[in-house]
């Protein structure tokens, strides 16, 4: 079970609008948090992540793909958000990384170590988008490499090596920070 889905799974079944389709508000409340976090980790840009999520919902509405099946909508939105993020990166639309914008937050009820969080955020910003994406899917969404490879459409070995490169890079960056600020 994904860490991010835990809260959503406890919610009651979604209400349906008069024409049988999922009400957008319900769909948003169930999916937007996860989608935004996914986009945020790919782009490392909060404003860009909001744009990507907005675009994905907009495309869902305009495409008429909105179905009563929550799972289908989630899958559609996830693909749409990912496509939008990489399109933005290709077009160079991502805003200059703002070192003050927060990428991470502690889990509810956990004490925050601001210095550690900022160090991890800075290290994550240095990673390429595709490596940050794999870190997100593995660490924050708790997917297996097989699930990740299916989700992002790369061979299993590629997903695993991408994750390993990301962790090596993160470890190097965090160790360097630790030596500078012991």
């Amino acid at each position, binding site marked *: 079970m994904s860490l991010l889905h835990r809260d959503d799974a406890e919610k009651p079944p979604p209400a349906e609008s008069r024409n049988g389709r999922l009400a957008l508000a319900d769909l*948003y409340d169930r999916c937007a948090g996860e989608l935004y976090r996914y986009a945020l980790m790919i782009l490392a840009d909060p404003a860009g992540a909001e744009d990507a*999520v907005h675009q994905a919902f*907009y495309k869902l509405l305009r495409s008429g793909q909105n179905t009563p099946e929550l799972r289908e909508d989630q899958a559609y939105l996830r693909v749409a958000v990912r496509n939008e993020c990489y399109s933005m990166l290709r077009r160079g639309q991502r805003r200059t990384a703002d070192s003050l914008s927060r*990428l991470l937050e502690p*889990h509810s009820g956990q004490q925050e170590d601001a210095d550690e969080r900022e160090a991890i955020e800075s290290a994550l910003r240095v990673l390429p988008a595709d490596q940050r994406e794999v870190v997100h899917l593995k660490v924050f969404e708790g997917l297996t490499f097989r699930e990740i490879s299916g989700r992002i459409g790369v061979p299993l070995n590629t997903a695993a090596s991408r994750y390993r490169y990301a962790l090596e890079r993160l470890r190097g960056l965090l160790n360097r920070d630790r030596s500078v600020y012991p």
Partner: protein
Amino acid sequence: MSANDDLAFAELEGRLSKYRPAGPSKALRARVLADVSPRAQRPIGKWLAVAALILLVIGLQWHTQQMDRETRAILDARETLWTPEAEELAQELDGDGAGRRYLAFALLADRQRWASQSSAAMFGSPGDW
């Protein structure tokens, strides 16, 4: 990957998993839901543009038909007015020169008067609009 790497990666994963990516702002919800407001669902502007285009095409067709009708009326009048009697009159007035020009002028004036009378009968005078 060595055992040390595994250990270090496990520690790093532990550090990372103490956090999660930050959530969206509340403004995003309003922004997304604005797309399904009744105004957004009914693209009135698009239909207005289509209706305006249809009206424009109908108007242009009507105007073209009117112009065509008037042109035909004028042509018909020219054929009707320049009769053998008119030719004879032109000859009587001064043969091929001044008499023919005078008659042509008279016929033109007559034709214009006839056209304005026929269009007034068809559409009414501007004051009637």
